[in-house]
């Protein structure tokens, strides 16, 4: 390997990037735009679930119950309905996610028999939102029950607390406010880096083929390894710039707490950028048309990173075979590392497994990519 030839290739590629300002602008500005858009867009926090209320009784007790739903802060009253058909209609139109029906004899039954039921129907199309909303509703009812219980007991002259209660002390670690942004934004960084990296490098070789400059490249004395390193250097610099920006935005703009070591963060980020660029390069070498290369690169990066890296959907909840598939999704390791560094403040010792996996990945990809490029036509 000659440093002079390596430098020449790197210089040529840098010039090519530099003289295509549109592509450069996209490579530098798009991550910024994405970070802002996605950073705000990725929230799973479900608050103010719209409810329709069908209060058949309209008594003091039933109104009190409705107030409790709203006062909990989880629900807002979207509509007040007057008949059963309207409930169905409102749900069909998506006017509300849940409908609470308080039966006509609610307070009378509560007073006489001591138990009365409130009916709720939920639009379970979005099962996640719905199960969280049902949880909230159960909480509201549990609180109301405790209240009814003590007033009922008081009215009957009984002391209700005869058995001891359990005082639940929940403690949330690492993400004390259970803010879903703290959980997802580190993953967004991995997604953006994965996209930028693959996008940058996946056309480098196929472009030479399609433009007809490959013959010129082949007739020069450069070796395959020099081509690879030389072509990837400028993109590596761009990738690191994007990464630095995204990580700074995560920590300073979105205020995700950073509790780990900066050195580990930088080292693993460089490693991940290397893997991503290597994969793009490999695709580029194997597929000679730019369209094909881009399609494969898109297919290999976007949805796998979005769905299989654990950045939104927890890996441990997937079926076994799919969990096995996630082992080859390199972003999975970076997402784990980012989350651990940001929220948990883990040390290198805790992160041995994902870091080793990334190293292994980098070595394997670079080795395959270096061998895949042949200076041969046809």
């Amino acid at each position, binding site marked *: 390997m000659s440093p002079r030839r390596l430098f020449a290739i790197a210089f040529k590629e840098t010039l090519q990037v530099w003289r295509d300002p549109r592509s450069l602008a996209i490579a530098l500005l798009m991550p910024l735009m994405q970070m802002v858009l996605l950073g705000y867009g990725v929230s799973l926090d479900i608050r103010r679930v719209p409810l329709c209320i069908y209060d058949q009784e309209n008594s003091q007790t039933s109104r009190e119950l409705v107030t409790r739903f709203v006062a909990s802060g989880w629900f807002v009253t979207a509509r007040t309905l007057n008949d059963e058909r309207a409930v169905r209609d409102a749900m069909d139109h998506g006017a509300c996610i849940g409908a609470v029906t308080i039966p006509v004899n609610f307070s009378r039954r509560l007073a006489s028999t001591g138990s009365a039921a409130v009916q709720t129907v939920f639009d379970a199309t979005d099962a996640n939102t719905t199960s969280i909303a049902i949880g909230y509703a159960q909480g509201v009812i549990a609180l109301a029950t405790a209240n009814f219980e003590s007033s009922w007991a008081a009215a009957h002259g*009984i002391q209700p607390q005869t*058995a001891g209660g359990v005082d639940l002390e929940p403690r949330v670690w690492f993400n004390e406010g259970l803010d879903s942004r703290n959980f997802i934004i580190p993953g967004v960084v991995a997604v953006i880096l994965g996209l930028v990296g693959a996008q940058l490098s996946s056309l480098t070789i196929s472009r030479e083929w399609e433009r007809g400059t490959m013959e010129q490249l082949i007739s020069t004395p450069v070796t395959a390894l020099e081509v690879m390193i030389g072509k990837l250097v400028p993109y590596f610099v761009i990738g690191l710039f994007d990464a630095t920006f995204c990580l700074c935005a995560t920590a300073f703009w979105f205020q995700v707490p950073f509790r780990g070591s900066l050195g580990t963060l930088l080292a693993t980020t460089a490693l991940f950028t290397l893997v991503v660029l290597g994969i793009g390069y490999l695709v580029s070498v194997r597929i000679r048309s730019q*369209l094909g290369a881009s399609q494969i690169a898109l297919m290999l990066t976007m949805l796998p990173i979005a769905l299989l890296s654990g950045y939104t959907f927890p890996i441990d909840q997937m079926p076994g075979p799919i969990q096995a598939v996630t082992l080859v999704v390199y972003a999975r390791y970076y997402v784990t590392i980012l989350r651990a560094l940001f929220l948990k403040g883990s040390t290198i010792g805790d992160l041995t497994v994902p870091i080793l996996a990334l190293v292994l990945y980098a070595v394997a990809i670079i080795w395959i990519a270096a061998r895949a490029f042949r200076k041969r036509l046809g």
Partner: protein
Amino acid sequence: MFERLYVMLMKEFLELRRDPWAMFRLIVPLLIQVVVFGYAATFTVNHVATAVLDLDHSQASRGLISHFVATGRFDVVDIAATQRQITRDIDTGRAVVAIVIHAGFAQDLNNGRTAPLQVSVDGTNSNTALIALGYVSLIVAQFQTEQMQNAWPVQAGVASPRVAASLQERPWFNEGLDDRWFFIPGVIATLTFMQVVSLTAFAVVREREVGTLEQIMVSPIRPFEFILGKTVPFFLIGLGDVALVTIAGVLWFDIPFVGNPLVMLLGATLFLLAALGLGLMMSTFSRTQQQAFALNFFLVNPFFILSGFAFPIAAMPRALQWFTLINPLRYFLVVIRAVFLKGVGVDVLWPDLGAMALLAAGMLTLSVLRFRKSLD
């Protein structure tokens, strides 16, 4: 006009057929993706890894733990002996939930005092943590109710003291609360969207870059016919995608399809037209395939994330909610989910269908205009 269009179409299909990888690239990855992503996309919380530290060793404490296990929501992965071990379990990610029952738990309960129960949750994944905490409080409430009922007859001679307003919840449209029913229609829409937009974004640029655009321009074909000829194949591919993936979803994943296939067809048509418009627009904004590719990469991702596929639009800040209004995927997700699960018709879905029609008309017109300009 039809003759010229026909020739153009023939050329496009020939190009597709002569590329031995094209059909493979179009179909096989799509099917694999439906299956993999169909299984991967889930927010269900089951078998949460749980560490237990029982310092009480009483009947009550064991009873409480068995309440946790019996739900199937929690799997005890570690029975710790010390508080340090519990901390270590959560630090290393071995357990997500840790339950600590202090000594004197049963005694407190029997003496009518409140017994503290410490539950720690790894909040890194806020969604899992939130749902798991919900289960925890439900289980504790059940346990408490049982304790009270057991204790009651000894204390007083009256019948059961429960005054309860109970909640009878009925999840409509998805009785099992299976979130695969929610995500698979979404996966169908997303995959189709990505494929159609990326194919179209390259269509014109490629002719330009390879140099065949000039040949086409000297032929008698008009810009409008050229664009039509370029987009019709992609439209057909898109419709094929929707059909293929829908069948895969219904047969493989047993997702109910309660709606009218014609409504779905109407929705898919409008959606594909909007997606084609978007792709063409990208095409007119780029001079090289690399630019088209970069644009595609960077626009498709926000469209995907800000569509309501996984992150509820209602949870986004107002400004982003406005942005989602120009996202065809957002409307098609509403339509496809409604057709699959709710079975509602045009009378309910017209706002979404109308929005897609508007988007399609707007983007197609804009791109034809821009295209004409870029030829001069």
